[in-house]
């Protein structure tokens, strides 16, 4: 009960909760909360006030991993750890639950931190089946071994083409002639990262000692992955043992690094962002709840945060932790101080006036999608492209392959989908079209009725011009040639104001209606609002 109220305050929403299940939604910035053990590690200080544990406990060990220099070009970051004596459970059900939890954690980290295993990938092995020391080398594509879930040796080439995991991740090795493999002292293949483990290292229900490898291109992601798997296993009583690593470049080091990371945050930035001076006590309490430690400081505050907190890129991330640790419901209040006058966009005034006019004509406003297609926009209505059309590279359907250049086709479609309703149907839309990849505002009407002829259309056009305050002496009406637009020959017209085209209207040609599967008389019109705004001055100004 307490958990369901307080857990969301950590930024982890409960999506489902019953007597024995908690489903928690983890935001992508907190990959350190992706399994029950690491989530519990964060909850203990946040909710139960326990002493935070920002460090991983690691003992010395004598297992080594030597990385060949050739890895620099193929998979430069290689880390490893050993965890012994993990309590995997008493009953078979508990053990299966444990293995399932471990595998799921690994897959979630592959997605969240590994970005599909490119930045980082994790291999978990049964240490008892292996003969240390280990080494990582690169091999040619005809090198072969028995991969996980296979019974016979397969070559690297075959694995990448035939093995399910090989097919999924082969693209990560595109263009590489040689690929990495991790071997033990007997030259048995532990792993072919980032694709697949060797068969004989498979973790079983009896495995209590683990060897973990993490490889990739992104050091921070690899470090976090290793730390989080170790944290998960140590929560099960496992003892983490350091592995000595001889990297492809640089000095020997041991992994995982037990020490938390030191972060420095300027006190003034805390005040700038959170709006007030936090006392050192408040800062200490807040960061403890978030699993870190406050070391003090004057101008600059010093914090120890767990190395697995991959999300901390900048001092601002510590500041958010302070806010969450302090409580979002107790942030205080503050009003903007600078007085400002809001300003609507100049075109929104014309938009409102056009809508009032259209609604005064008894037209119902509709809104349709901007996504359209060439047939609707050009072929069916006999309009030519106006400037460059915006074409989608990855459309979902052939109905939505481009952005519309005109609105009228959307209205024809809408009337078509409403053909089962009674007439009259009188609609308009005012909105954006895209020409030459730029947004431009247009408005169109369409009326389907028994007597929807040209005279009606001209009446609508007259009212629009009159209501917008056009000087009638500046307006010219030009008959459109047959086949120019959706209008019936001799029943379509273009309107110019001071010689500038502002729109066109007419009686819809039945052969156009037919293409939208419509068989009712219709009249319509479409106007360029930008042109209207230029041609007709605002009557108030």
């Amino acid at each position: 009960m307490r958990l369901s109220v307080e857990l969301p305050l950590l930024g982890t929403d409960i999506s489902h909760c019953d007597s024995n299940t908690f489903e928690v939604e983890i935001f992508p910035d907190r990959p350190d909360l992706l399994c029950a053990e690491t989530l519990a590690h964060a909850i203990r200080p946040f909710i139960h006030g326990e002493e935070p544990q920002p460090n991983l406990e690691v003992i010395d060990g004598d297992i080594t991993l030597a990385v060949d220099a050739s890895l620099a070009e193929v998979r430069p970051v290689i880390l490893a750890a050993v965890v012994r004596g993990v309590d995997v459970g008493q009953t078979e059900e508990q053990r299966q639950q444990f293995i399932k939890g471990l595998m799921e954690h690994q897959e979630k980290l592959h997605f969240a931190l590994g970005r599909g295993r490119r930045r980082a990938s994790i291999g978990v092995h049964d240490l008892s089946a292996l003969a240390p020391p280990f080494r990582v080398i690169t091999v040619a594509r005809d090198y072969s071994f028995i991969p996980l879930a296979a019974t016979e040796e397969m070559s690297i080439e075959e694995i990448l083409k035939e093995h399910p995991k090989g097919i999924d991740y082969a693209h990560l090795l595109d263009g590489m002639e040689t690929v990495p493999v991790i071997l033990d002292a007997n030259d048995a293949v532990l792993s072919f990262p980032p694709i697949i483990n060797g068969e004989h290292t498979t973790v079983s229900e009896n495995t209590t000692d683990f060897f973990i490898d993490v490889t990739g291109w992104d050091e921070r992601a690899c470090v976090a992955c290793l730390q989080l798997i170790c944290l998960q296993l140590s929560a099960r009583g496992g003892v983490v043992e350091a592995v000595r690593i001889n990297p492809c470049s640089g000095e020997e080091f041991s992994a995982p690094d037990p020490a938390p990371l030191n972060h420095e945050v300027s006190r003034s930035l805390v005040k700038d962002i959170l709006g007030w001076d936090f006392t050192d006590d408040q800062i200490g309490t807040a960061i403890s709840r978030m699993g870190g430690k406050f070391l003090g400081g004057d101008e600059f505050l010093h914090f120890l945060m767990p190395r697995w907190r991959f999300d901390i890129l900048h001092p601002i991330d510590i500041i958010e932790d302070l806010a969450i640790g302090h409580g979002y419901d107790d942030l205080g209040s503050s009003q903007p101080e600078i007085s400002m006058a809001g300003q609507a966009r100049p075109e929104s005034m014309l938009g409102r006036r056009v809508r009032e006019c259209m609604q005064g004509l008894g037209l119902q406003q509709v809104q349709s999608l901007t996504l359209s297609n060439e047939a609707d926009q050009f072929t069916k209505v006999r309009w030519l492209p106006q400037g460059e059309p915006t074409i989608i590279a990855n459309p979902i359907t052939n109905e939505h392959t481009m952005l519309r250049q005109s609105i009228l086709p959307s209205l024809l479609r809408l009337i078509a989908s409403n053909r089962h309703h009674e007439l009259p149907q009188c609609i308009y839309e005012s909105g954006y079209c895209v020409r030459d990849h730029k947004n431009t505002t247009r408005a169109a009407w369409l009326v389907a009725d028994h007597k929807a002829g040209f005279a009606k259309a001209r009446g609508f056009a007259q009212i629009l011009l009159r209501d917008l305050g056009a000087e009638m002496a500046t307006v010219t009406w030009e008959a459109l040639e047959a086949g120019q637009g959706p209008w019936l020959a001799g029943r379509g017209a273009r309107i110019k104001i001071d010689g500038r085209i502002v729109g066109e209207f007419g009686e819809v040609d039945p052969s156009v209606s037919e293409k939208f599967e419509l068989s009712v008389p219709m009249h319509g019109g479409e106007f360029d609002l930008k042109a209207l705004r230029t041609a007709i001055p605002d009557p108030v100004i």
Partner: protein
Amino acid sequence: MGESALSNPERRMLAALLGNPDQDWSLDEVLSACSWHDQAQAVGAGQGLADAGLVSLNEQASAVWTLGIEGERAHADGLLEARLWNWLVSQPESERGMGDLNSAGFKRHETGPGVGLLKGLGVKIIAGSLTLPEDASEFSGVADILSARGDFLASLVEGMSEESLDSSMLAHFKGRKDLIVSSESVSRTWKVTEAGMAVDSSTLVEATQIADITPELLQGDGWRNAEFKPYDVNLESANPMTGKAHPMQALIERIGAIFLEMGFTEISGDYVTSAGWNMDALFIPQDHPAREMQDTFYLDNPASIDIADEQLKSWQEIHEHGGDTGSLGWGGKFSPEIAQRGLLRTHTTVNTIRHLAKNPKEPCRVFSVGRVFRKESIDRTHLPEFHQIEGIIMEPGACLPMLVTTLKTFYAKMGYPEVRVRPAYFPYTEPSLEVEIKWRGEWLELGGAGIFRPEVTEPLGCSAPVCAWGMGLERLAMLVLDLDDIRQLYISDLEWLRAQPIL
């Protein structure tokens, strides 16, 4: 109730009844006195007068007998026993056998009951032959009975009340199949009450009642003393055709007005933009899942949009190692080609960022409302384009409490005074929060907010922290309109659209 409210038929009937106020008026008498032919008119007027307390109504239910199917046939062709009798008396004695009956045209199903009826009238069967009664008085008695029975049937043609019928005759025909049937009938009488007698008969002159008012009527004086037909206010009329705003438009107007009241200036931008402005400027890593082809509409035309080298370089530094912001960056290699890919904007934040890029030093409060595009298949809850609103504040002193206070003001102006915030995550804000409002008793997530990350604002040269918040509009529209299918908003059923309240 005053008599002025009486209808014309009520006036006529009351005037007639006042001609003899002590009488109980039957329906026929009323019809005749009022020169009406339609019973319903008399019953209706009588009911109206009774409701007004001007007459008393006495209703009596009784059984009415009319002809059944067989009765109507018997009335037309004669009763079976009469037809048999007539045949019998016209036949020579030697040809009155049962076989002769059939050859005379009597149906097989008629002969059995027919002979039984004849027996009841005194005809005997002697040696297979029908024999007439010998006694002359008995003989003529049969003829009387037959004619009485025929008359009885004839009297029922229009229906007769049970009391006015001969009970023995009624009993006889009740015993025979389908000759007569009864139904319930109400007989009414009306009598003027004291209140009715007090009515001044001069007010009972029938007035002209007018339904449609015409200009011709109004131009003369006829309308002055005319009566206007009252209408039944409960009757529904046809809906007139109207034009009104789409609910999304109305929501946008309402929200735009709130922003303007709060001193925000509206900005806008193009749907077509580059991945760089849409994502890289917001510090969304280039390998972020949301940037993949299955989530974003990329473009063939324009496949690529030029971005100044200087801009690309600044994003490159930020992404690879944090530039000089103090951030670690995302690591990896930044691709200028990926940044220049053309796409349909996936959020309106791109408007905000471009505004800040152009005006980095000037404190501002701006907002935008517009469509954004996501590669989603259309179903009940998804559309590939929808509306987002977004507002930002940049000024010295902009901070988390200012953001929360502003959010509370904003949502209170929308009509949601109860607001709370929760930690959340967006790639381009830190701290980030989720806004929840109390809507009809339930906490409801209605937007996201935060302070733009330094990796976003510092390369733009922003002089102060930037508070930002936004929300999608369709979800709110669906709640307000109690809509469970988002398609209704953009692929609308026009009847539905017309039926929506004006928001």
